[in-house]
């Protein structure tokens, strides 16, 4: 090497070889992997054909009357017509009837708004008079923050930024830990505690240590929690008494119906194959390759899916399936330029989707035949940043 090359090599080594760099917690890696996986699904959704345009346009232009939903499968016939609709031009309807996050505000399903004293809020749910809040930032892994009834910070811990709430809202599950260890602690506590308890925030919780990749609370069934898993791992049934039981047939669990004992997610070992299983016997009720399941409807009769193809390519369209049989009930794409970031059921006939378009974001309401209206005002959005200010909070 020449003198310049030697000097270059020495400089590079001196620059970094003796620096004490902080290590990356396994938990942060796994959590980011989960975020990436979701974004990939969203990105697949971006290129969705505008098959809904023809159906949606009349309702976009006149959304004062919400169209009835059809019990018949919707014909996803494609159309060359692809009018460019701006999010701000979509008619504004009723506000969301589910709890949602608006920047740092927690907005309850009844519209009650609470401003949380935190930035970068990704999820929040009422807990023991205060709130459990998930926060993150560009250079920060997920943290779980407990706020008391005066919205004062009680503690802040590493953890999964996901909460699960039981049917009726009686119990709440969350995970903390993972900063320095590849294991997290899954916790299940009563959402409210009796007024006679002097310090409700320290009232008993059930706890179970779990591997990071199997520690995502997805649903609460009685006194047990269904913990979702990343690819390569199995979801678990955690009863906080015995060793957690792997659900052999299910890899990533995404949604749980407590009443019907249904669990929706991805087939074990086949991350591109959707499956719904009987939560009692863990038998596969149905499976469908090329789809990712998202959310069971409130009555448990339907499940929302996104077409992902082989994982790298897919139409990205939405599908609504019969939760017990897998029959396709509705199938539709997205308006050109519209990108669904998070989609949940509002009730058994409507979906809500945090949607970005150009430099705007808003919550959009979709009927099952693909018609849309806005449920919130539009907010600014930095294109491609994934940094949405609107999100949905856990639904009981």
């Amino acid at each position, binding site marked *: 090497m*020449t*003198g*310049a*090359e030697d*000097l*270059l*090599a*020495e*400089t*590079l*080594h*001196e*620059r*970094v*070889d*003796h*620096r*004490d*760099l*902080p*290590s*990356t917690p*396994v938990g*942060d*890696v*796994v959590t*980011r*992997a989960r*975020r*990436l*996986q979701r974004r990939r699904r969203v990105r697949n959704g971006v290129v969705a054909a505008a098959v809904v345009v023809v159906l949606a346009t009349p309702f976009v232009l006149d959304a004062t009357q919400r169209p009835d939903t059809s019990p018949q499968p919707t014909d996803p016939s494609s159309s060359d017509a692809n009018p460019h609709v701006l999010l701000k031009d979509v008619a504004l309807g009723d506000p969301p009837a589910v709890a949602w996050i608006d920047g740092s505000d927690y907005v309850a399903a009844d519209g009650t708004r609470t401003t949380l004293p935190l930035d970068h809020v990704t999820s929040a749910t009422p807990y023991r008079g205060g709130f459990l809040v998930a926060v993150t930032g*560009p*250079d920060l*892994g997920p943290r779980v923050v407990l706020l008391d009834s005066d919205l004062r910070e009680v503690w802040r811990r590493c953890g999964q930024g996901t909460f699960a709430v039981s049917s009726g809202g009686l119990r709440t599950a969350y995970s903390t830990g993972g900063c320095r260890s*590849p294991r997290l602690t899954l916790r299940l506590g009563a959402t409210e505690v009796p007024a006679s308890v002097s310090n409700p925030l320290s009232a008993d919780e059930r706890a179970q240590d779990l*591997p990071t990749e199997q520690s995502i609370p997805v649903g609460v069934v009685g006194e047990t929690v269904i913990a979702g898993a*990343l*690819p*390569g791992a199995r979801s678990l049934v955690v009863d906080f008494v015995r060793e957690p039981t792997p659900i052999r047939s299910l890899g990533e669990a995404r949604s749980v119906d407590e009443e019907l004992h249904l669990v929706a997610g991805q087939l074990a070992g086949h991350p591109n194959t959707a499956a719904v299983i009987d939560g009692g016997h863990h038998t596969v009720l149905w499976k469908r390759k090329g789809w990712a399941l998202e959310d069971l409807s409130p009555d448990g009769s339907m499940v929302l899916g996104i077409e992902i193809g082989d994982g790298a390519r897919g139409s990205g369209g939405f599908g609504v399936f019969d939760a017990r049989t897998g029959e396709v009930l509705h199938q539709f794409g997205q308006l050109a330029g519209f990108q669904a970031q998070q989609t949940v059921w509002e009730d058994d006939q409507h979906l809500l989707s945090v949607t970005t378009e150009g430099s705007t974001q808003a919550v959009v309401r979709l009927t099952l035949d693909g018609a849309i209206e806005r449920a919130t005002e539009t907010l600014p959005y*930095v*294109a*491609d*940043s994934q*940094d949405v200010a609107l999100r949905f909070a856990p639904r009981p």
Partner: protein
Amino acid sequence: MTDFESWLVAREPALQRLALLLTGDEHSAQDLVQTSLAKLYLAWDRLDDRDNLDAYARRILVNEHRTAWRRPWRRREVVTDAPPDRAGPAIEYDGGREVVWEFVASLPPRQRAVIVLRYYEQLTEAEIAEVLGVSPGTVKSQASRAIAALRARLPEEQS
């Protein structure tokens, strides 16, 4: 401890150092490493060639850096009250080396990656070409131009 966790514990420091040379600051380096490791984690079960995990991880990291740099929001200037990170703890650079580092930091991402992979990671031109997905000729010309430009900045006795 899973295979991934074992590999992470052993190899993550090397990735951190590489990321720091590519990005120039600790926060960006940590972010880059975390994203790269997350992508590796998602691909872990599909990787048959476990002997080349290091090379695969390095390729993810380098290309993630190049991709991230192209994203518009990455290049936004953020006004902050906080002082910038110090260049490094308790390391005294002589004048020549500071000039060299400033030169490296001024290079465009791909050329900087070529220099870091060649003179820090000690990869061959062919190996660098594979990591970056370019021809060995491109690697050679980018390195040559960088060295020539560096020589022009150095006093004669050092070049």
